[in-house]
């Protein structure tokens, strides 16, 4: 049977906003064969999720399919009426969304919910429970019985997503749609879930539509990929071909925005894609990407290119696809970074910092005995899974939480433990850029008010001096004057984050904590924000503490990296040393969990299970319960000291560095 699992033909979708139909998908055609895995990538607003919702006919009330046809496993989806549509959704397709916590009912036990996925298929309720247990075992949940009797909030994010996947696969669907299924998860958990999906897909021969903004994930999971831009499929082909030899300027630009392959800030700026996605409902006369494309000429602006076949199923919607790889860079590379002088006095020194939270009688050790130093003008990257203490460390430094023990020094002087006791000088020296610019900026205040207030409080200036400084500051973060009168909601995510950065820089800080500042942004915007941070660092010799789960980003911006696990510093050293190894087994596992775009064979170590509770950390080396290189009893009994294994490279492991070097390089060869 050669029938496609999913076939879209010239599908047009419009959303009706204020009485006008605004196109969201424009003539989308794609086909997914049985057992095939197809990735759909693109930045937010390009129509990925709309495509998924269209397939199951779950469009919002103001959305409608205005043209084309959709068939899933040979059934014409658009002609289905209510009961047939319900049966189709119940039996033929499954969807898994980004947030598993929201997909599960918080007030029902997991077992009942999974069993329900079977009863709706007509399985008698006496059997459904047993089937649910099997399904959970199938998604590699070690103890299905106990998981079934728990409520969703008692499970970790990774476990929840497995449960959702188990429910999605209950019906053995012809098509499984995964919409950013691992975006909220830690890299180590993401790796496990992706492995699971890949394995199940092979077993069940299900067709998968995998939607993600993460090209690394797509590269690992999919055979073919389609790149969506402004509702148009601009490029399609085998994953390897598209990612190695992209032939549409958008794909080329997207790939260049992503810090990868060990690129660092001293190699130069990241490239960006200029301009913005056309607004919803814009009707470009020619190529949808022409406005942002450096190769565009008159033909591109007037005449929309068709999908042009390049070779072997690789198609690009570009008149000049053969020139696409030579797309001129948007950003010049050169960037003069002053070096960091580590013989000079430190800017901030953290000494044996510990933080214990009291929680319902338990003591949660969020930070244990962390020491580190930061020099002026350098970036210290903080890396670790959620719950590792990254954010607590940053918040302790800022004085948001007071440490239980230990001190922090700013330029040799002891910092008061909380911000309330800190002087204006100390407050202005340490500032923060938050992860989510939406909640970091007061939505009722104009940008101007936000920035002027920070100047008054931090720099102690007002009136003309503040106005002059405001102009200077907005120019430095590349905001226009017009932005100043606007409120945050009127700005795009990238502009909001620029405002947040400007606020942190209002009083000439010496150290800025960046807590995942780009994780809520699209990659092209992320690149521009990273460039901005690096430029500001070059101009002002500001130091950063940079927290991110994206190791490519951390590597790009950091001079040194600290790896935290369960509140303990496991490894600290120069970025290249930590990344290139020999590294701590935990660092090794973190690195190998990240799916890379190039698909090099780093994919070899998996951490079993979740990070242990900080309320009762394991004895000895806290990592021994998950360590793939555990030696034996010594790891369970003795906590290894944080020892300097090379100059400036500290590590907490019983395995001698030479042995680690050997172990890690050996596997690298065989991989």
């Amino acid at each position: 049977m050669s029938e496609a699992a999913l076939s879209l033909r010239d599908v047009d979708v419009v959303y009706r906003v204020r009485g006008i139909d605004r196109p969201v998908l424009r003539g989308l055609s794609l086909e997914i064969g049985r057992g095939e895995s197809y990735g759909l990538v693109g930045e937010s607003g390009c129509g990925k999720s709309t495509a998924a919702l269209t397939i199951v006919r779950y469009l919002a009330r103001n959305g409608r399919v205005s043209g084309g046809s959709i068939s899933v496993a040979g059934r014409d989806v658009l002609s289905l009426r209510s009961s047939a549509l319900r049966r189709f959704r119940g039996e033929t397709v499954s969807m898994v969304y980004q947030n598993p916590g929201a997909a599960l009912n918080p007030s029902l036990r997991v077992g009942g919910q999974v069993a329900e996925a079977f009863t709706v298929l007509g399985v008698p309720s006496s059997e459904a429970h047993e089937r649910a247990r099997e399904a959970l075992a199938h998604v590699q949940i070690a103890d299905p019985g106990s998981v079934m009797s728990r409520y969703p909030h008692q499970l970790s994010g990774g476990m929840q997503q497995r449960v959702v996947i188990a429910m999605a696969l209950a019906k053995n669907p012809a098509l499984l749609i995964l919409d950013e299924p691992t975006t909220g998860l830690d890299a180590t958990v993401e790796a496990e879930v992706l492995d699971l999906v890949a394995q199940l897909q092979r077993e069940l021969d299900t067709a998968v539509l995998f939607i993600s903004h993460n090209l690394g994930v797509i590269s690992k999971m999919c055979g073919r990929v389609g790149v969506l831009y402004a509702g148009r499929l601009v490029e399609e082909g085998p994953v390897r071909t598209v990612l190695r030899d992209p032939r549409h300027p958008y794909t080329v630009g997207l790939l260049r925005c992503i810090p990868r392959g060990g690129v660092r800030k001293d190699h130069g700026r990241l490239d960006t894609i200029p301009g913005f996605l056309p607004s919803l409902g814009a009707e470009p006369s020619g190529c949808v990407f022409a406005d942002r494309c450096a190769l565009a000429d008159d033909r591109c602006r007037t005449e929309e290119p068709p999908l042009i076949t390049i070779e072997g199923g690789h198609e690009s919607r570009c008149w000049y696809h053969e020139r696409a790889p030579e797309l001129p860079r948007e950003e010049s590379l050169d960037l003069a970074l002053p070096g960091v002088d580590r013989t000079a006095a430190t800017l901030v020194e953290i000494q044996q910092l510990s933080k214990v939270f009291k929680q319902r009688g338990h003591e949660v050790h969020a930070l244990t005995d962390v020491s580190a130093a930061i020099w002026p003008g350098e970036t210290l990257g903080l890396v670790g899974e959620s719950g590792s203490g990254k954010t607590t460390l940053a918040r302790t430094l800022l004085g948001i939480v007071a440490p239980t023990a230990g001190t922090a020094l700013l330029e040799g002087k002891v910092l008061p433990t909380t911000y309330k006791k800190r002087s204006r000088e100390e407050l202005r020296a340490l500032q923060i850029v938050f992860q989510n610019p939406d909640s970091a900026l007061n939505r009722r205040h104009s940008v101007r008010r936000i920035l002027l207030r920070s100047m008054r409080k931090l720099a102690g200036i007002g009136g003309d001096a503040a106005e002059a400084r405001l102009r200077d500051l907005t120019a430095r973060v590349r905001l226009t004057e017009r932005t100043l009168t606007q409120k945050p909601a009127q700005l795009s995510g990238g502009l909001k984050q620029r405002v947040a950065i400007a606020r942190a820089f209002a009083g000439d800080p010496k150290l800025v904590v960046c807590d995942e500042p780009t994780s809520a942004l699209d990659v092209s915007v992320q690149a521009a924000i990273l460039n901005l941070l690096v430029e500001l660092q070059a101009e002002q010799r500001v130091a950063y503490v940079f927290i991110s789960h994206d190791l490519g980003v951390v590597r790009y911006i950091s001079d040194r990296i600290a790896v935290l696990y369960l509140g303990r510093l496991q490894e600290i050293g120069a970025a290249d040393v930590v990344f290139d190894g020999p590294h701590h087994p935990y660092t090794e596992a973190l690195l190998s969990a990240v799916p890379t775009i190039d698909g090099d064979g780093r994919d070899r170590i998996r951490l079993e299970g979740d990070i242990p509770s900080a309320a009762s950390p394991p004895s000895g080396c806290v990592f021994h319960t998950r360590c793939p290189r555990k030696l034996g009893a010594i790891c369970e009994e003795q906590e290894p000291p944080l020892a300097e294994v090379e100059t400036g490279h500290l590590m907490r492991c019983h395995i001698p560095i030479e042995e680690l070097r050997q172990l890690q390089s050996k596997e690298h060869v065989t991989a």
Partner: protein
Amino acid sequence: MTSVAEPAVRSEASTARRERLRLLVKSPSFIVGATVILFWVFCAIFGEHITPYDPRFDQTPEIGAAPSAQHLFGTDRLGRDVFSRVLAGSRDILLIAPLATLLATLVGTTLGLITGYFKGIADDTISRIVDALLAIPLILLAVTVVAALGSRSTWTVIIVIAAVFSPIIARTVRAAVLGEADLDYVEAARLRGEHAPYVMFSEVLPNVMPPILVEATIRLGYAIFAVATLSFIGFGLQPPSPDWAVQIADNYQDLAFEWWTVLFPALAIASLVVAVNLVSDSVQQVLER
């Protein structure tokens, strides 16, 4: 260097506000409610100038006359024109109820901000007091206070109603503040050395205005009711005020013979309460969309 161009269509916040206003003005319940309220406000302002007879003392020869062309709503047992009295009767209630609501909103909002922002001991103490206050029925409290003060002035009524309503508003505001105070912009304000009052009133308050506005309009409806109740049982406005509730209190013994002296003021109260509720409903729908 990058220059960041502005996207062309990016004025959602101001459009959203205009959109909300447009939705409000287009909503039928808002139109009906607002019209009725405006009518009573008009009557309250012009009072005696627009009534056909003097609402207080006009002793027309017809005593207890049924509604007729001359006296649309009839006359009461003192021969006063009921129609004139109903028109004039909105003045006091439309002064007292909004003032009481305003006072309750101010006090309640401040309490709510303090409890929601500081949490901890301040929250526990104030919240328990609020809970205790909420447990006492309005009328009981009002009667006690009025009796204790020995004063039946307009201000006593305003303060009593405000005292009863402010805990309710405080609770609503507290819930809204709790959700807001964890957001990063509050943290950012603290990290630049802002003091608590600034953070509460300049940073948090503007963001919790929608629920406060909704709660205040709901309270206004109840306040009208409360004023009427107090006046009816004799602890609010006093005769010879043409207040609706006073009229009802004056005449309800004669309900069987002179129903018009009770029915029309009662309908007037009902129309105002319903109108306020219609407005409050539509405000709520538009703000909480």
